[in-house]
């Protein structure tokens, strides 16, 4: 378990961390998610000891490490730009932590070979980082961080510098690796899809504060506020509330819409809207709408529903929110 208590960090007049407290359970894969400048990297680096807090404490597995340097925190850290030791071979890179600890040569060699096999770099022992692709370098960096048997593995936007395909592959691979190794892992990302895909817990940060912590489903379905809702997926403004586009139903009959809406508590009501555009997106159809109030929003409905409705541009239709779960009272102060 990693516990951060009342962490605060200022850079001049910019507050990177504003009284942040967070528990990260042992064995979990937690994502710190937020836009740039939200303090997510600072928080990760503070856990690693690469950044000194102005106030607050960090404990790792019950040990207060607030005043310990990085080398005595029992961590593994993976950097966005790999931080490969350019003058060393892949083998020496991965062995670095063990060499520093003066482990016997045979043991080190065996462990390095094992790790390289796990990360799929078997046979690359004698290459230099410059001879590897970005994805390979990052896997080497992961093996290097895992070699010292860290209590926690910290990853700072590890896939940020890679292209889309490699990023998705490595993400899946990290997930599988975590299921095998079970080391407490904290991943910093600004990509909500990545967080939802990989993590079993997500902490959403904004302006140096934690907005919400929870599992991906909770965060997606019951966001604590506008910011979390807006950051974890697309949103539509419907009668002063925020709704997921796929939670909007469209009805031809106003009476039918009103009747169905009556069953949904605290709903934003039935909104009459003009169809501006119908966009087929494969499995789903996006309908761009303009409400009587002039506010534009989009609904995402299934192909079948769209076929039944036979929507034409310029028609008036009746929109309602189908579920309470993803409706958040709209608070303009928190909006992104």
């Amino acid at each position, binding site marked *: 378990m990693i516990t951060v208590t009342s962490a605060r960090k200022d850079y001049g007049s910019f507050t990177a961390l504003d009284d942040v407290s967070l528990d990260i359970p042992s064995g979990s894969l937690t994502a710190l998610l937020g836009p740039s400048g939200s303090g997510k990297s600072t928080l990760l680096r503070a856990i*690693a*000891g*690469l950044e000194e807090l102005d106030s607050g404490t960090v404990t790792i597995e019950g040990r207060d490490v607030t005043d310990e*340097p*990085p*080398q005595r*925190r029992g*961590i*593994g*850290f993976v*950097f966005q*730009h*790999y*931080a*490969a*030791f*350019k*003058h060393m071979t892949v083998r020496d890179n991965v062995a*670095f*932590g063990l060499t*520093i*600890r003066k482990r016997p040569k045979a043991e080190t060699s065996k462990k390095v070979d094992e790790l390289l096999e796990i990360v799929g770099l078997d046979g690359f022992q004698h290459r230099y980082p*410059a001879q590897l692709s970005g994805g390979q370098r990052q896997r080497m*960096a992961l093996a*290097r*961080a895992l*070699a*010292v048997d860290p209590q926690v593995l910290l990853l700072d936007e590890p896939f940020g510098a890679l292209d889309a395909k490699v990023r998705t592959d490595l993400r899946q691979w990290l997930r599988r690796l975590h299921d095998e190794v079970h080391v407490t892992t904290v991943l910093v990302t600004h990509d909500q899809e990545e967080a939802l895909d990989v993590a079993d817990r997500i902490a959403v940060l904004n302006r140096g504060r934690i907005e919400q912590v929870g599992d991906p489903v909770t965060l997606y379905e019951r966001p604590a506020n506008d910011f979390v809702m807006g950051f974890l997926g697309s949103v539509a403004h419907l009668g002063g509330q925020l709704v997921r586009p796929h939670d909007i139903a469209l009805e031809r009959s106003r009476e039918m819409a009103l009747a169905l809406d009556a069953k949904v508590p605290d709903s934003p009501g039935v909104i009459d809207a003009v169809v501006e555009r119908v966009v087929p997106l494969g499995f789903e159809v996006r309908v761009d709408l303009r409400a009587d109030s002039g506010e534009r929003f989009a609904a995402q409905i299934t192909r079948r529903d769209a076929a039944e409705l036979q929507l034409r541009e310029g028609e008036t239709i009746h929109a309602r929110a189908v579920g309470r779960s993803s409706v958040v009272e709209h608070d303009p102060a928190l909006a992104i």
Partner: protein
Amino acid sequence: MRVSRGTRLTLRVVALGYLFVLLAVPIGVILWRTFEPGLSEFIASISTPAAKSALNLSLLIVAITVPVNVVFGVATALALVRGRFRGRGLLQAVVDLPFAVSPIVVGVSLIMLWGAGGWFGALDRAGFQVIFGIPGMVLATIFVTLPFVVREVEPVLHEIGQDQEQAASTLGANGWQTFWRITLPAVRWGLTYGVVLTVARALGEFGAVIMVSSGFPGVSQTLTLLVHSRYIDDHNTYGAYAAATLLMGIALVVLLLMTLLDRKRSDR
């Protein structure tokens, strides 16, 4: 821009002619004069006691200057790149001072500082001779060669950033281990280049060194001073040519080394 054939040829002739007259001819003349009487004459001239002592002294000064500049040069470069302290801008400017100040001024200021009547003159009066002794010549050489290592290492430090060092620290390395295993290997080509430049300049330094040397042949003459004294004081023109050729030979070896290293560096 299109350049006509005539213009291009003219430009080439001018450029090559300029190099030829200013560089090739003087060096050619010295080489020709040196080897005109034969190789044995040359060897005899550079193996007199005065010449041997001058060569030894030059190499001794290099041998002291280089390690001092390496240690303080790397430390200064680290402070300039990584440090966040007041007066960093001032330090930046001070490092370049030896490039700006005439070597003769360096010599004069050293005499005023370390000479018998200077601020640190007590040392001299106590019998430890700095000025007109080897320590003075070393000080003068260190002064004029100080910027080379700093200015070669500094951009490399900038370029590599701190990621690798931080990675090493998360892997358990302390500051000292990180420096030896990560930082130093990462800047080694910049450092080597700085050392080569330092050696070349230390061998060739004249103005600052002549001010603080007693100039006795066989005692306190560097190779560069020997060339000067043989020519001006002894009217031993041939001896001056021979010593100059020896000096050039060493410089040439250093230059070759530098080119080879540079090629190796650009390979990476």
